[in-house]
């Protein structure tokens, strides 16, 4: 049995510490240890993006990262995106444009949209589609998702800002 490792990860501004097996995936640290179940497990094989979170400001798939690799880093999950009960403008835009059906892919989609708009505040439709190309929606509701992201971008201002 390999040595367990002590890891400390800051999630949505709060520190979580645990002794874990090195093979524990970040997504299971988030869901099982931090009890933040907004991050979903879809394919568990780096294809679908349902487990997308931000680590130090960039999107990553938390099923394809060991918790030990995230030691000392800052994670943003969907639970940290809304502030004080107010939806983030991207979330509001998803709501306004009916950009979720079953909702399973939504947390990952929102994080990918957030990352995209932080890099490209005024993306073209093609850039939006490429920006969420690592996220699959099995309801195939892509059109409304793309519309929602484009509309959020048009609002301008600090839409791509990360919640602090």
């Amino acid at each position, binding site marked *: 049995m390999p040595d367990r490792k002590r890891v400390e990860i800051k999630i949505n501004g709060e520190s979580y510490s645990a002794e874990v097996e090195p093979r524990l995936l970040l997504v299971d640290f988030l869901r099982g240890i931090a009890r933040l179940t907004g991050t979903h497990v879809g394919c*568990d*094989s*780096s294809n679908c993006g349902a487990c997308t979170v931000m680590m130090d400001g960039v999107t*990553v798939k938390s099923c*394809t990262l060991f918790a030990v690799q995230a030691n000392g880093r800052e994670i943003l999950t969907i639970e940290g995106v809304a502030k004080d009960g107010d939806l983030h403008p991207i979330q509001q835009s998803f709501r306004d444009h009916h950009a979720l059906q079953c909702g399973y892919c939504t947390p990952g989609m929102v994080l990918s949209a957030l990352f*995209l708009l932080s890099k490209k505040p005024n993306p073209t439709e093609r850039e939006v589609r*490429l920006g969420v*190309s*690592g996220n699959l929606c099995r309801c195939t509701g892509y059109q409304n998702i793309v519309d929602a992201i484009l509309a959020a971008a048009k609002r301008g201002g600090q839409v791509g800002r990360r919640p602090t």
Partner: protein
Amino acid sequence: MYPASFDYFQAENVEQASRLLREYGEEARVIAGGQSLIPFMKYRLALPKYLVDIRGIPGLSFIDKKDGCVRIGALTVHREIEESDLIRSQLPIMRDAAPLIGDPQVRNLGTLGGALCHADPAGDWGPVVLALEGRLKCVGANGERELEAKDFFVDAYSTRLQPDEVLTEVVLPVPGAKSGGAYLKLARRTGDFAMASVAVQLTLDEAGVCQHIGIGAGAAGRTPLRVPDAEGVVRGEKISATVLKEAARRLSQAADPIPDLRGSGEYKREILKALLQRAAQIAASRCKERR
């Protein structure tokens, strides 16, 4: 889905990583971004008992230019290459390839060095680094050495790296002002591995005669393929449909693509032929742009 158990070490510097690799030998693997290795471990295609994490080693993530070469640290992630102004101006062929790798999340973690060491026959950086005649700096117990890209790949998922060696840097000679390059890849869908891909870097003289050419092909065999036979057909000639057709024929002869779900060997050969001709035309047109 969990990989088999392993012990995990975070290396603080290359020497420590190399020491751990020497100690644990074949049972140890280096992990950087892990974007290929972790899926492989989940599927039991890789069963390392020891993981040596090099991602925290300082000084291995950079893109700079020195002595006529662009040098890229092994831990540089694909997105940084995609966004780099230096890459855009000096090695546009890399700007072609970077956004075609995986998806944004994978490009945020996956590294240039990791992708090269993973040596997927259908990977994107192999053909590009071959066409650019890059060199790979490796550091191990016996010090540092540089391998030419054409000597680096041994077999599918297998490189010339010694068990205790770590790839630290990729050195890419910057082609002259009258050079142009292009990378083309055909994939079934965005983010997938290549059904086939071709990288071409060529230099034309004032009369439009090809002075130098590097051709690399992906998913064309068990390793990324450098194609001297096809290069020889183009060198000393003007870029024409006839010349490129013959080069494409030579490439398809040299290639021995692995048949898989992405296509039969025969189909991939046809794709390679089409991609070579198109990539060479784009590369030639970029030479003119830069003149």
